[in-house]
């Protein structure tokens, strides 16, 4: 029976825990109730409210691709009360999940275009969903380029998948770490993401740029893309405002007339420029 209660979470069992980086973990989650699993679907870019009962809820994207069926994944950094409780969970434990919420990356509209993914640090997870979604439908897109940077080599997440993307002939992957964050054997670039992007000089011709990262990275990346001729409506990003309800009621993620949880989290730069800078 459909619940009347918008706040009642699904029960999810932690199937697998992957340690990605210091304090960063990925959970693979499966529905405890098989019927809910069958009825559930989401699209790339959407997010959810993950909860440890007794501790509260926390908002992250769904980091897996909708093309990978039967489970969802989330990646989070242990930072506050809820994420610390999550980090203390073991495989087999049951947590709560509400979702999927929010809008999507319009990947159908991107068919026939080149894709340029630019991510920093812990912001690769939302992009990982859309990267795998597009790679699983590889014939729909032309060149796929991924630029990913983190503070240090240890802070790079999804190390196995980075290796996989590096070895794929149909993906161009550039990884970078901040100056001082390299290890003796580091073979990637050294420098901040906007600097490396500037050196790469990607063509803006028929290309969508998707940018996710800490506010300071985003701030310095947009001008580089503008210099290369990317129009504002070809640049996509996600906003990470604090949320509680996820369904446009609690007021917390309100920016201008927009609710990030309903109208976002995915926005084009053109849309962002119409909003007050309260994000």
């Amino acid at each position, binding site marked *: 029976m459909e619940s009347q*209660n918008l706040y009642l979470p699904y029960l999810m069992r932690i199937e697998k825990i992957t340690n990605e980086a210091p304090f960063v973990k990925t959970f693979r989650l499966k529905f405890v109730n098989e019927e809910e699993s069958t009825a559930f679907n989401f699209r790339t870019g959407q997010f959810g409210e993950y909860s440890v009962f007794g501790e509260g809820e926390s908002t992250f994207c769904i980091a897996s691709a909708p093309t990978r069926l039967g489970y969802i994944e989330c990646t989070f950094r242990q930072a506050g009360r809820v994420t610390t409780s999550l980090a203390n969970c073991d495989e087999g434990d049951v947590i709560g999940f509400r979702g999927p919420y929010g809008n999507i990356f319009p990947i159908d509209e991107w068919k026939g275009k080149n894709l340029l993914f630019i991510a920093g640090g812990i912001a690769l997870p939302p992009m990982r969903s859309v990267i795998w979604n597009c790679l699983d439908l590889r014939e729909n897109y032309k060149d796929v380029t991924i630029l990913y940077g983190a503070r240090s080599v240890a802070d790079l997440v999804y190390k196995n998948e980075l290796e996989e993307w590096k070895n794929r002939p149909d993906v161009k992957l550039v990884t970078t770490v901040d100056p001082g964050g390299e290890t003796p054997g580091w073979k990637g670039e050294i420098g901040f993401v906007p600097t490396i992007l500037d050196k790469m000089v990607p063509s803006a011709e028929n290309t969508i740029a998707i940018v996710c990262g800490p506010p300071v990275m985003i701030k310095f990346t947009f001008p580089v893309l503008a210099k290369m001729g990317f129009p504002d409506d070809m640049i996509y990003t996600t906003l990470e405002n604090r949320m509680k309800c996820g369904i446009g*009621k609690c*007021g917390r993620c309100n920016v201008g007339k927009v609710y990030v949880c309903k109208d976002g989290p995915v926005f084009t730069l053109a849309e962002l420029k119409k909003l*007050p800078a309260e994000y």
Partner: protein
Amino acid sequence: MDSLNGTGKIIMAPVRKGKLVELEPVNSSGEIAFDAMLTTQSAKKTTFPRWEKVMEYEQLQKGINPKEVDLDTLPELILFGIRPCDASGFRSLTAIFNWDSADQLYLKKLEKTTIVSFACHTADEYCFCTSVEGGPGNTANSDIQFTRVNDDNFLVEILTEKGQALAASFSGLLSDPAQLPDKMQFLADVPIVFDLKTVTGKATANFEHPTWLQQSYRCIGCGACAYVCPTCACFDIQDEHLIRKGVRLRLWDSCGFSLFTLHTSGHNPREVQSHRWRQRIMHKFSYMPERLNITGCEGCGRCSRACPVDMNIKEHLITIAEL
């Protein structure tokens, strides 16, 4: 009151509690503060309580058992003697809780509530309902409205089916005079002090104006304005864990609190009080009108009366209209 008691519904009415007047359950008319201009807190707590359970859970030997809150056996309420601004405040709350998805935690409570408002025959300098499309005799969202004619007689307007059903319980007290008196003469005089569309237009156009900073210098971010407001609906969700079981609660919150938008990283999108004051006004007078086609203010003036540093929203809105 005897007739209403006979309905088996819980009657909530203004009751004096020391210096305050609060909406409380009553059993007899003697308990009701009919002379009070306005309750200290708004009537929103009846459908959107200061805290309420959104779910409960039990820890089992293996796993966890979340439990729904029972929304089908809620008590039926009569709000008796609330003011027109409180009654129409439910319009804003409904707009918020019922846009896009239907929040039954709120809607079911409203469904079980019959609103008997009393038109205002007094007002004070903080009242400005007439400037936000309300008025001392506004019937919006009331099921029945009483207007005091003299010590013995009221003009009774039965406005909805719910009102009709309730009025049946006291039909013996009603008579149908050949000529109805003009309601206006019994109402408080509340002058219009600004043009609402001008406030909306000026607020929207002046996001970067220094007036927000000037107006908010005094604000200490205590959130009292949001707590007494009949339309403020921002909330928090928190868990409370007892032994082997617990509850998830929805609690009133305020955009005026510095923690409201604070990220775990330390980044705060509205990092100073002037941003938060601007958000409060913009949400009510710009974003809600555009998004939900309704103004998030009833002009009750409670926020100004409750403000410990005497920020007067009426004066501030007049200033904004004059930008």
